[in-house]
């Protein structure tokens, strides 16, 4: 029955074999409701006098709204309320503003221009869904069609139309740059030393999550001036806070009920249906349903963002990857939603599960006139993993190696320093490759069949941060002004170097937008609520515990985004050496370099979660 197979021989001495549930058939706790049709999805709540809300949407990729004539629609039977831009109390938001990440860039109802097909410009509330549809069809919008851009690299050109007024350069801002940088070692020098250079370009399309239940919400006035909202959301408190912000309403006045999601896969975190339904309920004083139909789900519903990756590998004759560079373009569509974070997550993942001593990446989050992208199952990682794994096969072919041998040879092992400057732990790629080879009947080299993730890593060069070449290319706006050098990343245009072993620099977060967003550090176990850290130059001893840890950005993968010319760092001992005494001094503080241990409080994470499998 079960196709799960346990390989308990792997890491046998590191794991207590106390799996009581995994691998055994179990009955879902919610399945009785599913098979009897009684599970209450958001639309399975009946309200007397329920009104239906539908949107007038843009038929153009990019257009300015000259005027909207809804006089005929307003007179149609059953129409209760026309919802205009001026009815939205705070008509600008970005999802991650709740984490203080990015500027508000997206209106709930577009005020002046639309930037993708299906962007709402007006909403109509009527007694029945049919009357709402008829009224929507009777609205006349005068459009001034603007030139649009649908390709990520076209959007970076100096003359490309500007998609989003808040980010006029068509790129999200990462520090002073228009892209997320990752620098580790010196890729250009390593490319010169390489025997083979393997290049490739990989592109994936946007993917619609297509849940069976379309996105929607029902909101209704409750007693005591509150509003109840039944919603399909995957992120209930995210949706609640977003609604409170857009409605300029205390969140205590909102009563959100969710928890039954008719399939989501990431497509139900965007929190754009809940504010609409609550807005309707506020304006009419009656229960209002805002539900996408299937066409809206496919056209307006945010997909997994498309990614384009260019990868360049430098290989030695014996199959080692000594350098890997990436140029990535993440298609965010017209608004940020979660793409800014997807890029950071993807960059932190580079260069994949391999030990490569020289890595560089420039990753762009690009605005285009396409449907805004959002979460979907590993977004930011899946696209680049697809590219990396295709490229691994290409590399194996170039050096004439069995691909599985090639993977094992380059696989990361416990203790190896990764490009994001943390040591790898709990690595298992080698074992996966060995099992796969066995299953597929592939012959691998005898020493690879004997290899282990536990052995051979974490020593010498593999464990240290190399001297790293940095550059200042790609500052915000440079691309538009056409004063950019052609080389996309480091190399001859490099202007700075960071000494080997220099891992940590204090990262100073932007101040919170609102006072109530400020984080009370004491809550997370920081007993010394010090003044916020100022940007520090490299010191010989990297601080084991940043004095102002901001949980929002636990691992900014741009380690060199600090001072333009790093001060000449004194010769340093390897990063691992000074850690131990520091850690002891700091006691229970948050130590990013250290593996999580039982009982250590990590910001924002339950103390009951620990990572003690392998220390």
């Amino acid at each position, binding site marked *: *029955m079960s196709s799960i197979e346990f390989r308990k021989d792997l890491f046998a001495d590191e794991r207590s074999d106390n799996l009581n549930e995994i691998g055994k*058939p*179990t*009955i*879902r706790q*919610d*399945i*009785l*409701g*599913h*098979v*009897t*049709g*009684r*599970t*209450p*999805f958001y*639309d*399975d709540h*009946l309200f007397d006098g329920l009104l239906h809300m539908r949107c007038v949407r843009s038929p153009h990729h990019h257009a300015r709204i000259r005027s909207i004539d809804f006089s005929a629609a307003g007179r149609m039977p059953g129409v209760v309320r026309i919802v205009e831009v001026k009815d939205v109390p705070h008509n600008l938001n970005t999802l991650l503003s709740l984490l203080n990440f990015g500027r508000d860039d997206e209106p709930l109802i577009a005020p002046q221009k639309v930037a993708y097909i299906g962007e709402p410009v007006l909403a109509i509330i009527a007694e*029945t869904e*049919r009357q709402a549809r008829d009224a929507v069809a009777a609205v006349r919008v005068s459009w001034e069609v603007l030139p649009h851009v649908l390709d990520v690299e076209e959007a970076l050109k100096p003359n490309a139309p500007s998609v989003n007024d808040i980010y006029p350069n068509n790129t999200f801002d990462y520090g002073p740059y228009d892209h997320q940088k990752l620098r580790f070692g010196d890729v250009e020098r390593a490319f010169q030393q390489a025997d083979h250079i393997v290049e490739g370009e990989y592109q994936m399309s946007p993917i619609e999550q*297509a*849940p*069976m*239940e*379309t996105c929607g919400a029902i909101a209704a006035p409750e007693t005591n001036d509150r509003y109840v909202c039944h919603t399909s959301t995957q992120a209930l408190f995210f949706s609640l806070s977003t609604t409170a912000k857009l409605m300029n309403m205390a969140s205590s006045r909102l009563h959100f009920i969710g928890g*039954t*999601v*008719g*399939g*989501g*896969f990431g497509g139900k975190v965007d929190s754009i249906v809940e504010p609409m339904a609550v807005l309707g309920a506020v304006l009419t004083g009656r229960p209002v349903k805002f*539900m996408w*139909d*299937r066409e809206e789900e496919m056209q307006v519903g945010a997909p997994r963002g498309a990614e384009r990756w260019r990868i360049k590998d430098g290989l030695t004759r014996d199959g080692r990857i000594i350098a890997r560079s990436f140029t990535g373009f993440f298609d965010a569509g017209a608004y940020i939603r979660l793409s800014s974070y997807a890029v950071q997550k993807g960059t932190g993942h580079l260069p994949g599960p391999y030990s490569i001593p020289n890595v560089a990446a420039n990753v762009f989050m690009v605005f285009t006139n396409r449907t805004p992208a959002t979460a979907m199952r590993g977004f930011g990682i899946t696209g680049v993993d697809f590219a990396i794994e295709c490229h691994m096969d290409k590399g194996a072919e170039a050096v004439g190696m069995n691909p599985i041998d090639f993977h094992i040879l380059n696989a990361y092992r416990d203790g190896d320093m990764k490009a994001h400057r943390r040591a790898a732990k709990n690595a298992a790629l080698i074992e996966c490759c060995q099992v796969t080879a066995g299953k597929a009947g592939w012959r691998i080299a005898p020493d690879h069949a004997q290899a282990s993730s536990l052995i051979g890593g974490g020593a010498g060069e593999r464990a240290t941060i190399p001297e790293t070449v940095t550059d200042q290319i790609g500052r915000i706006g440079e691309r538009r002004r056409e004063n950019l050098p052609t080389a996309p990343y480091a190399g001859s245009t490099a202007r700075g170097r960071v000494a080997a072993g220099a891992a940590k620099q204090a990262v100073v977060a932007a101040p919170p937008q609102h006072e109530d967003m400020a984080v009370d550090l004491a809550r997370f176990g920081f007993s010394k609520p010090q003044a916020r850290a100022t940007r520090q130059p490299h010191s010989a001893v990297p601080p084991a515990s940043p004095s102002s840890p901001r949980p929002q950005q636990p691992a900014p993968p741009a380690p060199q985004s600090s001072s333009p010319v790093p001060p000449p760092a004194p010769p340093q001992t390897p990063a691992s050496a000074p850690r131990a005494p520091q850690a002891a001094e700091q006691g229970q503080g948050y130590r990013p370099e250290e593996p999580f241990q039982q009982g250590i409080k990590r910001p924002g994470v339950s103390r009951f979660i620990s990572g003690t499998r392998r220390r």
Partner: protein
Amino acid sequence: MAKKPVRFTHNGRETAIFAESGSNLLDVLRRVVGDLSPKYGCGQGTCGTCIVLIDGEPHLSCLTLAETVEGRKVDTTGGLQNGPDLHPLQKAFMEGFSAQCGYCTPGMLMAAKALLDRNPRPTREEVVEAISGNLCRCTGYDPIVDAILDAAGQTSGRVA
């Protein structure tokens, strides 16, 4: 708007309602009758979440005019169990982990019931054919097909 009286048997009970002319059976079942077990998935007859049985035959209720069930027998997942006893299909779905989000399940169960009612010993191919009009996005079809075969009293007949 003109409303038409419609009388039909809903899950074994005589039901009389007024349906707006032109309204579809799905809306009427959900909003007028109050049987929330059939679900809206696409409104275009492509996904099968709204399948109900009309005189024992599976029909897409989102594309069926409510008026057309006058005098007929309409069965939904809400009436599948017999008092406290679950239908064998329901038990098999529970034990076979054949639902995750549960949104497609009512339609799947109805399509499966129509099959088993007319063919109590279907082959795997016949089961696949019977639910070919139903989409599922989470579970995958294998556990569903297995459950239907289990309910039919067969071993799951999984081909390796």
